[in-house]
């Protein structure tokens, strides 16, 4: 079943079928859609069971609240400091194929769940699970109250290999609040995901993503620094093999004075996998004294794999310090030689160096147990 077929099947009885069909009338993204240039073909071309690696369940830190989202169902385990309500999300999205999945949600009236976090002393776990084949949509809005520090763990797991997940999460971080967001993508379903984060004055975001599974995953991560002194730290590690296709489109938008951002993104691709990362830093007029740095380093481990990366800078303000860097290469021969001269076999030496390459990103995971579980998963994946 193609993505289009699955969406059509879902549209047999949507809330607002007419407008949804109108949206789909503009079509899915195609190779000429700039932000989909590397992924449009893969999206339209998915029809076999992807390699699926579930891995060990990590020993998550004791959670005050588990939000379980399975398909369109959401359950929230009782907790203090978190309120759950239904919300209506409207709003206009720019026209064009690039936004067709998000606009599909608006048009067909995907129910939106709103979490308001007033207080959080222990981590909050978002467990996103999509058990069915076919299309399903997840729409979540998270509000973090002023001054609250919250540790958010998003666990995308399970998933039907023939499923198509359309996920859209909004995170609004109020003044002085701080969010530490750990995102683990280990589900099998194909997914088109979108995350919009807005940071108010002095708000902080520390985001770490580890992505290993799914035959096809596309994620648009939009971070808006809207308050003075806002700070965003983005880390990502993508490990793909087989015929996996992962594409992350990060946009960091500085719109006020003196916000800071720092991004580290690492990708490891082997077999026939393709990994894509586009990282835009946009400093809007008036966002003087912004500082933004982005670095993406990538390992290409097979002659049939491909890495495409596009770090972008759009600077329209003064007194700005911005930089980006990108590298694509393979393991360092000298380091390999050193390990082999110490009696380490070549496959083992390669595995060690590859895991160490990802270690930079994993080091930003504060919880030791979680970090170690993730490192083990990455190591197992690398050894495949």
């Amino acid at each position, binding site marked *: 079943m193609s993505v289009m077929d699955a969406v059509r099947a879902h549209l047999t009885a949507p809330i607002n079928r007419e407008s949804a069909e109108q949206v789909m009338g503009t079509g899915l993204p195609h190779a000429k859609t700039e932000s989909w240039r590397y992924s449009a073909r893969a999206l339209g071309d998915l029809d076999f069971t992807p390699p699926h690696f579930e891995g060990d369940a990590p020993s998550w830190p004791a959670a005050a609240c588990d939000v379980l989202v399975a398909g369109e169902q959401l359950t929230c385990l009782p907790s203090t400091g978190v309120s759950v309500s239904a919300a209506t999300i409207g709003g206009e999205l720019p026209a064009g194929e690039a936004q067709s999945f998000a606009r599909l949600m608006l048009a067909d009236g995907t129910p939106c769940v709103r979490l308001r976090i007033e207080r959080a002393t222990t981590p909050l776990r978002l467990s996103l699970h999509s058990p069915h084949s076919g299309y399903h949509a997840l729409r979540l809005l998270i509000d973090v109250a002023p001054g609250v520090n919250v540790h958010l763990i998003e666990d995308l797991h399970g998933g039907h290999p023939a499923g198509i997940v359309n996920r859209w999460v909004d995170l609004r971080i109020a003044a002085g609040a701080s969010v530490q967001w750990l995102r683990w993508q280990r589900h099998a379903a194909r997914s088109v995901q979108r995350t919009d984060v807005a940071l108010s004055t002095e708000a902080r975001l520390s985001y770490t993503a580890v992505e290993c599974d799914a035959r096809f995953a596309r994620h648009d991560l939009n971070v808006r620094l809207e308050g003075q002194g806002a700070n965003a730290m983005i880390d990502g590690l993508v490990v793909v093999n087989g015929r996996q296709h992962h594409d992350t489109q990060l946009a960091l938008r500085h719109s006020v004075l003196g916000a800071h951002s720092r991004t580290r993104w690492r990708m490891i691709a082997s077999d026939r996998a393709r990994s894509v990362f586009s990282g835009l830093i946009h400093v809007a007029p008036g966002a003087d004294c912004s500082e933004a740095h982005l670095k993406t380093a990538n390992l290409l481990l097979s*002659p049939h*794999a*491909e890495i*495409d990366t596009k770090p*972008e*800078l759009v600077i329209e303000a003064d007194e*700005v310090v911005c*930089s980006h860097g*990108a590298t694509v290469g393979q393991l360092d021969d000298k380091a390999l030689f050193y390990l082999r001269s110490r009696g380490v076999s070549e496959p083992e030496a390669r595995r060690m160096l590859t895991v160490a390459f990802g270690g930079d990103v994993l080091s930003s995971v504060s919880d030791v147990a979680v970090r170690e579980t993730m490192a083990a998963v990455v190591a197992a994946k690398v050894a495949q």
Partner: protein
Amino acid sequence: MSELLESHTSGNAHVDELVRKGYEHGFVTDIETEVLPPGLNEGVIRAISARKQEPAWLTDWRLSAYRHWLTMAPPEWARLEIAPIDFQAISYFAAPKKNLPKSLDEVDPKLLETFDKLGVPLHERARLAGVAVDAVFDSVSVGTTFKKELNAAGVIFCSFSEAVREHPELIQKYLGSVVPAGDNYFAALNSAVFSDGSFVFVPKGVRCPMELSTYFRINARDTGQFERTLIVVEDAGHVSYLEGCTAPMRDENQLHAAVVELVALEDAQIKYSTVQNWYPGDEDGKGGIYNFVTKRGDCRGARSKISWTQVETGSAITWKYPSCVLRGDDSVGEFYSVALTNHRQQADTGTKMIHLGARTKSKIISKGISAGRGQNTYRGLVKVEKSAVGARNFTQCDSLLIGKRCGAHTFPYIEVKQPSAIVEHEATTSKISDDQLFYCLSRGIDEENAVSMIVDGFCKQVFKELPMEFAVEAKKLLEVSLEGAIG
């Protein structure tokens, strides 16, 4: 420190004056010109071709390019705001009205005066400078110096029209082999209506005894310039080619759509340097040249090398991506660029390095300077195909912001399919450092000179790649365009 800076910047009338300084190449030469009426259709293309007494195959080639162009839409992906261009309002052929001169002595003295004003070393100066010049005035090449010396070495350097007459087999073999007629919107337009340009052929084993140079000038009103340059260097040959451009000040926008094709065979080396100083329009963005150029080099042979160096200070709009197709094993591509946008100029420029051969290397150094309301974009592609075992790329893009209303943007595309390749890209954007400026001021250097020194230092990596006389001109151009933009 900031107070000190303010006191320096606010009262700097001299610097302001420099910023407002006009475009010194903005004069119009009053000579009789033969112009085709505005408009574009197959008849116009046949007329251009007939006037140039071209063979039938070339007329057909032009017509097929035109038919293809009709099916294309102007590119919209560049970060440029371009008012719609009325291609029917442009005259596609303008020539100084006299029979084509047979030697420099027959060239209209007024024309020579123009080149004199421009500082083109065409006559005696050419000898002193040791530079062979082909000057293209509106649509026609008006004179090529040093022909004898070049002939003795076996180098062909002549106008494109002459090459079509004298060396049709070479033109037929190589024309469109790097930039096909339908490559992109502006290349297709150029292929249909190109009027003249330069042709260089360096035979096997020859090192061109002097630097070759072309000067382009748009003089007539409502005309576009569509020149075509083709440089072919055979095995182990070597050539260094310089290109300069100016235009008079006019209120309306004028179109320049050129194509440059370079072919480097085994062990051949081509160095192509440009100082582009087309009229940039006035402070409010009125007038100026629309500069849409397709430049591409093909390193066909093993160990060949193509090096692009450009200093882009002029034009209202610059749309230009000199590229290298690194086909031969161990071939090398280089791109050095300084692009300056002041007032309301817009530049979207960069390069493409396509690695196909084994152990191919490329290096990209791009320096963008934005002042006033200028918008400066670097757009580049580094593509490493599966066959490019051991390929290597290094890219560095730095942007300097001067003022609050300008923009500096970087869009590098990196696509790697070969695991043994190493690709590195780094980019920075910053303003002129207060510390650097303060240091210079505290040493008694006035602000004007301090900024000039800092910008010069910023661009040094590129300037050192330019032939000396061009480096001097480029430095002077930047000083005129930039100094005092701070504050």
